């Protein structure tokens, strides 16, 4: 069956609104647990105020944070999915939904030209919103996820070398968390996303997706990577810094690592922090036009992490 483009636009608009207003339950639970363990008095007060803020946002249907960040999309297309306009039409309605939600929620128009600082007032522009595409075998649905992530502090990239090992990764993570954690520039406690390997751009992309597209509590299927995730989370929380950079214990609510095979001589690493307004929402548009909403993007499927040459395919003829 062919999906009507109106269904895609309506779903994209709805997730733009939900992402801006309703904090995902996994993040809310993670912060509630951190608050119960938080050792710093002021840091604990901040987590308490944030919980009240999320309640106010949902009750009033107003954005949890006025900094819209850079609203953007991740689209996963089932290999059997068909959309009436084709996928150029999908890109068109994702832009339309962004502009419509910016006016209605309202979202702050954040997107400006990098040099001329000019804007269209609707969070749409050159290369904005970004749309990342991926595919899924044996499915006839389209998943659309929107992420509204702040864009100024908490991200870094570095080319490490194999000899630098896990020590190098730990130093890199400590450097970033301390630099951006002071005074709470990173708006921690954050979901820490680490990209390891790939080429430089995939390294950045993997880390960003690890931070934004996996939920609090999710572990990597590779037990070695899962163990490193927990180790880096514990390292971040051992800094002695909490929310807003006050003395405390709540820096990293969870750590997610994604890897890509990389140059034999290198070990590039990136870090990204998804903040106290970790905004994401997902819609699945089924072939019959039914739409389901959820807060777990389910982006990193076995297919996305595939390592082999061959993969089972099935296409309609």
């Amino acid at each position: 069956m062919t999906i009507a483009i109106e269904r895609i636009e309506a779903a994209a608009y709805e997730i733009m609104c939900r992402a801006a207003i309703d904090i995902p339950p996994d993040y809310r639970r993670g912060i509630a647990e951190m608050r119960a363990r938080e050792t710093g008095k002021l840091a604990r007060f901040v987590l308490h105020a944030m919980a009240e803020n999320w309640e106010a946002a949902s009750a009033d249907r107003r954005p949890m944070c006025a900094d819209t960040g850079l609203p953007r999309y991740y689209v996963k297309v089932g290999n059997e999915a068909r959309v009436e306009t084709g996928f150029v039409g999908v890109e068109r309605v994702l832009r339309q939904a962004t502009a419509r939600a910016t006016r209605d929620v309202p979202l702050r128009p954040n997107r400006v030209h990098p040099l001329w600082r000019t804007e269209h007032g609707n969070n749409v522009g050159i290369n904005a919103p970004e749309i990342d595409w991926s595919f899924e075998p044996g499915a006839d649905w389209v998943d659309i996820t929107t992420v509204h992530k702040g864009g100024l502090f908490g991200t870094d990239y570095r080319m490490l070398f194999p000899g630098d090992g896990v020590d190098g990764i730990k130093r890199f993570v400590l450097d970033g968390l301390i630099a951006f954690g002071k005074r709470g520039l990173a708006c921690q406690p954050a979901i820490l996303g680490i990209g390891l390997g790939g080429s430089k751009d995939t390294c950045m992309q993997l880390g960003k997706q690890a931070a934004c597209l996996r939920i609090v509590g999710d572990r990597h299927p590779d037990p070695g990577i899962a163990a490193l995730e927990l180790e880096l989370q514990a390292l971040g929380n051992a800094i002695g810094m909490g929310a807003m950079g006050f003395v405390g214990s709540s820096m990293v609510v969870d750590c997610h690592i994604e890897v890509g095979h990389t140059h034999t001589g290198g070990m590039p690493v990136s870090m990204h922090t998804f903040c106290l307004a970790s905004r994401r929402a997902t819609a699945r548009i089924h072939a019959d036009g039914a739409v389901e909403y959820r807060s777990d993007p389910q982006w990193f499927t076995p297919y996305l992490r595939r390592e082999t040459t061959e993969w089972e395919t099935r296409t309609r003829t």
Partner: protein
Amino acid sequence: MGNPDEDLKIVRLALPAGDEDIGRLETGSVVYLTGTVYTAREGVYQKVLGEGHALPVDLRSLSQANFHCSPAAAAQPDGRYKVGAVTATASFRFSRWMDRWLKLTGTRIVIGKGGMPHEDYGKVMVPNGAVYLTTVGYGTGALLGRGIRRVREVHWLDELGIAQALWIFEVEDFGPFIVESDVRGNSLFHQHGEAINARIDALYAGLKPPALHRYGETDDRKREVM
């Protein structure tokens, strides 16, 4: 707002506030404001202090509180503005304008994210009798949005856009904010930063440095990057 965990001191301040009330604010206290607050950040500072344009409104008589923020706002068909959420932006970027701005406008309360660079308190804020209130967690946009009773005026909206325009808000129980610096220049972030710094060397102990260094960086983690 309640505070079940702790007995942090809570202050409800009516604006304009007198010298005595501002002088009594202690670092680490929680503050709620009622009165008139305006927004100005790099767009307004550049226009007035960089390009020499006159202020479109007499801020000195109107408001003593400068919020480093941009609202999520949209114009309504009736010409009024719907303000959804309000969140601060990082203040350290505006350091080079603050001394002249405080003198020009008589602003006594600066509200924002993350405070000013530490040396600014002694050099700029204390001589101008100004205190700094930080927003909480930097994401309490919905709570702050609730505190805005109405948009009194907005200036340079077409020219600077929603994020950079000069907004003047009537606010009620607007907060929470935490007193970051008092009139004597004591800084909460500085006190906490020092306490955290004392443990930093131990975190790096035993971790060998990467083979390739980076130019232009400080390698002293006790310093701030701003």
